[in-house]
């Protein structure tokens, strides 16, 4: 992962605090998951459901081909804060980034957050699944 990118800065943010604080940081991200843009709000069925997640999570990607950047939107219910937290990390870390930057993200994002012990590796697979889904969406678009 290239240093200095928004996602790398989020990794540093997690790694700079202790394990229990990382959990609180994840909760903080969950609260900061941006609202869906109006166009998607009533049409969740038009979004892509990430079925690897234990709670319902919907993903939509908007492409700006002139600038070659992708905008990412997520929706997840309030009773799934862990899923919301992961989604929010990826939204803050990857939305508005170039196709190239997004495709360059390794799938093992979970391991960079330092949460394996407090959350368990099993639960971290959800965030990796989300990364995989975002990459696929960009790859399909680029063709």
């Amino acid at each position, binding site marked *: 992962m290239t240093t200095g990118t928004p996602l790398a800065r989020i990794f540093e943010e997690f790694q700079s605090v202790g394990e229990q604080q990382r959990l609180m940081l994840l909760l903080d991200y*969950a609260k900061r998951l941006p609202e869906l843009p109006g166009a998607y709000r009533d049409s969740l069925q038009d979004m892509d459901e990430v079925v690897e997640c234990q709670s319902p999570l919907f993903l939509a990607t908007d492409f700006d081909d002139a600038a070659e950047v992708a905008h990412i939107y997520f929706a997840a219910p309030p009773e799934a804060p862990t899923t919301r937290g992961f989604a929010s990390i990826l939204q803050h870390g990857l939305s508005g980034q170039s196709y190239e930057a997004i495709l360059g993200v390794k799938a093992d994002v979970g391991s960079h957050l330092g949460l394996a012990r407090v959350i368990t590796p099993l639960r971290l697979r959800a965030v990796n699944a989300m990364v995989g889904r975002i990459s696929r969406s960009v790859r399909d678009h680029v063709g």
Partner: protein
Amino acid sequence: MSSDQDFSHYANPGALVTTDWAAEHKDDPSVVLLESNEDVLLYETGHIPGAHKIDWHTDLNDPVTRDFIDPEQFAAFAASKGITPETTVVFYGDKSNWWAAYALWVFTLFGHADLRLIDGGRAKWVQEGRELSTEVPQPRDAQYPVPATRNDPQWRAFREDVLEAIGRTPLVDVRSPAEYSGEVTSAPGFEDKEGALRGGHIPTAVSVPWARAANEDGTFKSREELAAIYQEEAGVGDSESVIAYCRIGERSSHTWFVLKHLLGYDEVRNYDGSWTEWGNGVRLPITVGAEPGEVPAS
């Protein structure tokens, strides 16, 4: 409505409490509420005031032996939550109490006497617009003597027990129909996790997806309805013993609770190794398809 809930027809009416009861008794010195969720952060977003958090994954499992904690660890854990052997421990959680039932079942292994579930779980409390708090309570000072044993033989089935039970003891598979038949190797929504090399079920096991025991609001169905499903339809009948399993043992804890506390079967064991073990196990027979299947020729 919770005030209409009547548990007296269940085999063990004391194993369930209403949200009303929880609201009234949550501050009793003899009561400890434990919230057990699938989502590891849900408690932090707000919980029943005074309730403590229990994490089914990190608090109850020993990662080295892939087993539950031992009696010493259990005693230390219980005391850290203000629990003594006399405490009424009340569990509740998300996802229709899956993980609450799992935690309750693990407490059962250590012989804790008074264990209860809030009927309808966390969702019911929230739906009723009841108070939630983000304040983490200070546990009361408590001593918990180390239990003499973790009573695995009574409440837990291992693969050898299950192999032995095929054709002798009713087996209840509580996974989704597609997992049971073998069309998929993991639960819907759990793809890429907890998967198995083979799809199908343990020969002779009957399919009763766990959610059939629950009403739409997550409360348990009446004893009459439950008897029709498990005793009659699934053919568990009057068998003295029965074994339930799922994929990792949490959905089957929910069914274990139904069979043991609501229907009153004597010897109910949860096969917590479940399909993640059986589906991957060497020399373990399976049946593919919608029918229970025959006892394999040995």
